[in-house]
Each structure stands twice: as structure tokens, then as C-alpha cells.
């Protein structure tokens, strides 16, 4: 029997329901794991072990009294720190929200709690979700559990690392341009960005609202499904949310017609390419067809993404003026606009850059040159993909074009950093679901395979991922643990 803290979510619930262990025992084991590794990995911004243990005891009491402990009873969840949790400090890894305690729970948090999940703490990210390594966190960076000198990916880096090390059972991250898939790939865990609108964004602190979705990062496809079904659903608090059907784990698989995106493969490092090709052979083994295709407008995707994301960010982050909430800065002596500017100088550099670019591309004179063209590209790309999905069930490619890299390698050149997202932004621009699966290592560093499907076709993604997971056997535990 594996260690308690390495159990998957479905195993935890089953274990508690069968009386194999108590929720308190389980949660204590997770907390022990945190104590062992956190000083090295640094996944958390806020850890609330007291509350977690109290919740665990409550679950045990319920179980004793033969009450329903919920579909996620006893499961510990790490929450990316840009998702609002009532009365638990929510910082977005920024100094601007250093003292911010939300007065409400995000809808996804409510769903988790209603099903017995235990909120363990808030996980590290790049400030406001802008970045791919957690190096832009204003608190501290998170370290890749597979090699502590390397970045864990981002912006949900804390989620990737915490799940990989067993510091929580499952986690919830958010993905605007790859922020779930990048860290999941770099940390060798499973991450899903759902179809846009599948998950309520109420409570997700906006970075780019037309692009982002909350999604699960877990140790297995089965756990992804468990979490996804619980957090999905149309929400009256989010006019962009839509209803969807629950996903099931099937143990058979249709003969899917799969296309490998040529541009994504060609733009990747050799090691990555090799691993992805061998994974595609596995698809053939399980009865799928695999062909290479080209996407016409792909080279405009990343510039389009950065234009739109920065534009939306510049507006979404305008509210941070420290008047209604924030951090301690007395108002005396400042005129209001100077106060605002002085408050906002506390954003990190990357956030500042994106806000400035966002203001630039929206300003009169540049709006049609950048913003409108980016919107147009987005429409064209989506149409092209939807056409492809009439012919193919799934599109695949490497999640990341490169292996995880060392801290400091890309931080001096913003463009170098942006290029890291080149494979992932496509799914956000088109609003389609995308999953990343761990498929191998190179020099001890993880490689992930990205699979995309048409809107609301998560079932196909899960079917093929589940089959692949069962076929591919890779090392699951970093030596750290």
C-alpha cells in the first residue's frame, strides 16, 4: 500500500468510506508531507492546517454517525491563490492584495466544500497569473520537485509542485494561456483546461476574462474527472458559464481520428519531439489513427494572445487602487490620482509591463491596428479549428516546446518567456478543452503531451487520456519524496 499522502483522490474517499483510515489520519499525513518538503519546494503562500484538521475531524464525526461525507469527503485541495476563498487570505501572489481576505467563496470552492472536500491552503503563482514559472510571484518562487534548481512552470506553479509532491491530494488552478498545462507538464502530473464556459469564473480573480478557465491539476485522469464533474455547471453568478454533461471513465475507447499539429512539433526541442512521437505510436497501439496536419494561422496565435490578454488585464487590474481593500497605505497627503499611482507602483514588473502594453493596444490610434486584428485572428483560428474537428476527433502535440529550465534563464527577456506559451495559447484563444498528460522524462525532467478536443468534448479527451495513462508507465514520484 502506498503512503497515505500519495493516494489519489478516489482512493482517499474510498479508504475513508471503507474505514481503512480516518480523515484526520489522512490529513495529518498530508500535513507531515508538507512539513517534510515545503521548505524546499515552497508551493504554498498560505497554509491553513488547523482549519484542515478541524474539517477532517468533522468528516470523521459524520462518518461515525452514518451521514454522507460527500463525494470528496476527506480529499485535501490546494487552491491557486487567485481563486477567492472566504476568510482565507487571497493574494494573487501580489503585494497589492497582501491583506485581502475575501468575504465570499468562489463558486468552485462552494462546490468543493458542499461535497466534503477540505481546503488545505493557497498555492503560489506568478503575480495575477501573468507568467510561466512563478518567478514573478512577489512572495517567493516555487521549485520543481523533480529538480529543485528548475522552474515548476506557471502560472499555477504551486499547484503543479504540490500535487507532484503529495502536499495536497488534488489542486485547482487557472489557465489563461497555458497556466494549468505548463506546470502540470513540467511537474509530471495531469492538468485540464476545460472548455471556456464550462466552469463558473465567479470568484476567479480576473486576468484575462475571455480566455481563462479554472481547472483541476491531479495525479491521475480519474481524479481529474472527479473534480471536473463537481466544479462544472452553469452558474447564475457568471453569465458566461454554460451547462454541460458529466464525464465518465470508460474502459473502452473508440477508434479516434487523431491529428498531430506539425507546427507545434517542429517548434519543439529534439527530446520533446522524440517523446511525443513515441506517445503517438501508443495511440496507434490502442486503435486510433494518427496523422500530421498543419494549421494555417498558428504563427499569429501568440501575438494575438498577448495583445488580447494584456488589453483585458489592463482593464481588469484597474480596480486595484487600495481604496476598498488591499494593503496598508495611509491616504494622508496624497491627491487621489497620485495615491492611485503610488499604490500601483507595487505591482511587479511583469504585471506593469502587461498593463502598459494593454493600455497601448487599446488606445485610440492603435485599437484597430492591434486589438481588432487580434480579435479577428482569434475568430479565424477558432473557425479553422472547428473545421478540423469535423474531420478529426482530437488534436495533439507537445504541451511545452522545451524541457523545464533553470531559474533566471528567461527572466531578463520577456519575449523569451512568452515563447514558452506558444503551444498552449491556441486552446485559450479558441475556447476549446485541452489536457496534458505526463509521457516521459529527459535528463530527469518531465515531458507532457497535450491533447485538444472540440468545445464540450471533454469526454473524448478523458477517454483517450485514460487509455494512454494505462498504457504508458512512467515514474510517478520525485525522489524528493
Amino acid at each position, binding site marked *: 500500500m502506498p503512503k497515505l499522502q500519495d493516494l489519489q483522490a478516489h482512493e482517499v474517499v474510498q479508504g475513508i468510506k471503507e474505514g481503512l483510515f480516518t480523515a484526520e489520519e489522512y490529513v495529518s499525513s498530508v500535513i507531515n508531507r508538507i512539513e517534510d518538503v515545503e521548505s524546499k519546494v515552497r508551493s504554498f503562500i498560505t497554509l491553513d492546517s488547523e482549519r484542515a484538521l478541524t474539517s477532517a475531524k468533522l468528516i470523521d464525526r459524520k462518518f461515525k454517525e452514518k451521514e454522507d461525507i460527500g463525494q470528496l469527503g476527506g480529499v485535501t485541495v490546494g487552491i491557486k491563490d487567485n481563486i477567492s476563498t472566504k476568510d482565507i487570505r487571497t493574494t494573487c501572489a501580489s503585494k497589492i492584495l497582501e491583506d485581502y481576505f475575501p468575504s465570499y467563496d468562489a463558486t468552485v470552492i462552494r462546490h468543493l466544500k458542499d461535497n466534503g472536500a477540505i481546503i488545505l491552503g493557497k498555492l503560489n503563482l506568478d503575480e495575477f497569473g501573468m507568467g510561466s514559472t512563478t518567478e514573478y510571484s512577489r512572495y517567493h518562487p516555487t521549485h520543481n520537485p523533480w529538480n529543485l534548481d528548475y522552474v515548476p512552470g506557471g502560472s499555477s506553479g504551486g499547484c503543479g509542485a504540490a500535487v507532484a509532491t503529495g502536499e495536497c491530494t488534488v489542486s485547482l488552478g487557472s489557465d489563461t494561456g497555458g497556466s494549468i498545462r505548463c506546470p502540470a507538464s513540467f511537474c509530471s502530473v495531469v492538468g485540464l483546461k476545460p472548455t471556456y464556459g464550462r466552469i463558473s469564473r465567479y470568484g476567479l480573480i480576473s486576468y484575462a476574462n475571455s480566455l481563462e478557465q479554472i481547472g483541476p491539476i491531479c495525479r491521475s485522469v480519474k481524479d481529474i474527472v472527479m473534480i471536473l464533474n463537481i466544479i462544472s455547471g452553469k452558474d447564475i453568478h457568471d453569465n458566461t458559464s454554460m451547462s454541460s454533461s458529466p464525464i465518465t471513465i470508460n474502459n473502452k475507447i473508440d477508434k479516434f481520428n487523431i491529428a498531430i499539429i506539425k507546427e507545434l512539433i517542429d517548434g519543439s526541442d529534439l527530446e520533446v519531439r522524440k517523446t511525443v512521437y513515441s506517445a503517438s505510436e501508443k495511440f496507434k497501439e490502442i486503435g486510433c489513427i494518427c496523422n500530421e496536419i498543419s494549421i494555417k494561422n498558428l504563427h499569429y496565435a501568440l501575438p494575438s494572445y498577448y495583445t488580447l490578454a494584456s488589453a483585458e488585464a489592463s482593464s481588469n487590474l484597474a480596480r486595484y487602487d487600495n481604496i476598498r481593500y488591499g494593503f496598508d497605505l495611509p491616504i494622508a497627503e496624497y491627491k487621489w490620482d497620485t495615491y492611485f*499611482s503610488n499604490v500601483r507602483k507595487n505591482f511587479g514588473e511583469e504585471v506593469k509591463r502587461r498593463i502598459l502594453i494593454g493600455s497601448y493596444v487599446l488606445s485610440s490610434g492603435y485599437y484597430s491596428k492591434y486589438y481588432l486584428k487580434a*480579435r*479577428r485572428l482569434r475568430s479565424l483560428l477558432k473557425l479553422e479549428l472547428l473545421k478540423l474537428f469535423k474531420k478529426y476527433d482530437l488534436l495533439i502535440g507537445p504541451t511545452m516546446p522545451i524541457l523545464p529550465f533553470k531559474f533566471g534563464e528567461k527572466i531578463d527577456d520577456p519575449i523569451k518567456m512568452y515563447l514558452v506559451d506558444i503551444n498552449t495559447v491556441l486552446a485559450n484563444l479558441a475556447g476549446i478543452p485541452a489536457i496534458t498528460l505526463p509521457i516521459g522524462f529527459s535528463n530527469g525532467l518531465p515531458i507532457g503531451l497535450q491533447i485538444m478536443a472540440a468545445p464540450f468534448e471533454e469526454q473524448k479527451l478523458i477517454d483517450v487520456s485514460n487509455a494512454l495513462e494505462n498504457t504508458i508507465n512512467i515514474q510517478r514520484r520525485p525522489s524528493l519524496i
Partner: protein
Amino acid sequence: MISKDQLGYLAQISKIKLSEDEAKKFPEQLDKTIEYIDILEELVSGDSFVLDLQEIKFDELRDDVIRMSGGQRINKNLTKDGFLRGPKMK
């Protein structure tokens, strides 16, 4: 090329005070980003960005009902009359 004035203007409309260091290195960094997104110029322009817009039907919208959630939403800086104290206007 982003000039110092242009950068100043952007910082002004975004209400962000830049440090000396940032004022020095941002023009070049922002330039690189703008150069990168300039590729969008190759695209044909047209008003039809509307192709992919999400829609919602009128009937699905919220009814006009009052629902007060209760409890203070602002905790800092309130005067005894309940006003929020903000910085001076002039």
C-alpha cells in the same frame, strides 16, 4: 519606438508610478513586445471580429429582484457616518 513621453503617457493613463530602473529598461522591453505583436499587421482588417462572439438569450437573464447579501463589504477606513474615507480630490 516607445519614447519616454509615450511611456510616461501610458503610465499616466494606467495610473502606475514607475521606478527609475523601470523607466530606464521598460522602453526597450516594451518595444520588443510591440515589435513582436506587429506581425498582426499582416492580417487583413475587417469589422468581422464578431464571428466568434458568445451569445445569451434575453430570457436567460436575471430577473429584477432584490437580494441583499447582508454584512459589510468594506471594512477599512470608514467614518462614523459610514462613508469610506478616500484621498483628497484636489
